């Protein structure tokens, strides 16, 4: 995995160049937003369970998915769904701290769509739940940090669809 610093260095090292002013500005803003990122991570880890609960209530509960015949019907499947949402939230938080989505690609999205398709897990419902997590998280951590987290929730969604 990379963070914003290593990804900048890797990009410029292969060209034997110093980072240009755009890249420097990005790094500077990244360092400046450090407090915000650390605080958001702390708030999310303290409220991870309730974020998932609220997001599921918002997006999946009482829909066809949880009804008999739906993909979240039976406790075992419900639990598997919750577990995956927990993974998404944790990895999105990692990516937000790093300022780089590569960890999502490596640890979450790589082969996930194929796995879900073979297991019959509906992508649409998953995307709905991740979008709900995005809203719930933004309510918790505030607009600015919420926007940053949103980038990585959206990254998961676009990687799935």
């Amino acid at each position, binding site marked *: *995995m*990379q*963070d914003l*610093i*290593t990804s900048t*260095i890797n990009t*410029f*090292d292969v060209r*034997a*160049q*110093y980072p240009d002013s755009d890249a*420097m500005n990005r*790094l*500077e803003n*990244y*360092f*400046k*937003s*450090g*407090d915000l*990122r*650390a605080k958001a*991570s*702390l708030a*999310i*880890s303290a409220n*991870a369970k309730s974020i998932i609960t609220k997001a599921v209530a918002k997006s999946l509960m009482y829909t066809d998915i949880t009804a008999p015949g739906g993909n979240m019907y039976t406790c075992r499947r419900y639990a598997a769904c919750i577990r995956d949402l927990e993974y998404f939230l*944790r990895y999105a*938080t*990692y990516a937000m*701290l*790093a300022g780089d989505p590569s*960890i999502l690609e490596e*640890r979450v999205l790589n082969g996930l769509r194929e796995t879900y398709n073979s297991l019959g897990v509906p992508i649409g419902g998953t995307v709905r739940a991740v979008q709900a997590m995005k809203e719930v998280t933004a309510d918790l951590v505030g607009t600015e940090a919420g926007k940053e987290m949103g980038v990585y929730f959206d990254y998961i969604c676009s990687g799935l669809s």
Partner: protein
Amino acid sequence: MSIITSSIKSADREARYLSLGELKAIANFYQGGQDRLRLAQILVANETEIVNKGSQRFWQRYPNTPSNTGNPTFRASCMRDQGWYLRLITYAIVLGDTEPIEQTGIKGTKEMYESLEIPLKNLAECMRCLKEVTTEMFSLKDAAAIAPYFDYIIQGFL
């Protein structure tokens, strides 16, 4: 690897969020970021001067070295490599870790320079000269932040 990535990696191995202690360390790293960028920018702005001065000092100390034989290619390569090492040092300063130096500039270096018949002892001295002229430009505190990366390279040549 920055402290950010290494903390995330160890948290991920245990499938947990980052601890308060880890986040505090990261927050400190973020806060020091602007200062590290400042140091790197000074190095970038003075690259030519540093390399020129470093080369002069090196050739004074080690007159019998391939880059001082009057061969313009050898001379230019020597100065180019100094510039490259300086660039790797700016990367390492911003990252707060020696990884970029190690990956690009240390692994395989001995084998490469030996096959080019460039004495490693001379290279180490060249880097020492580069370190001296660089640290002379900075305050004691800033120099102390930069010097370890030069030392890392010098160690890599020995």
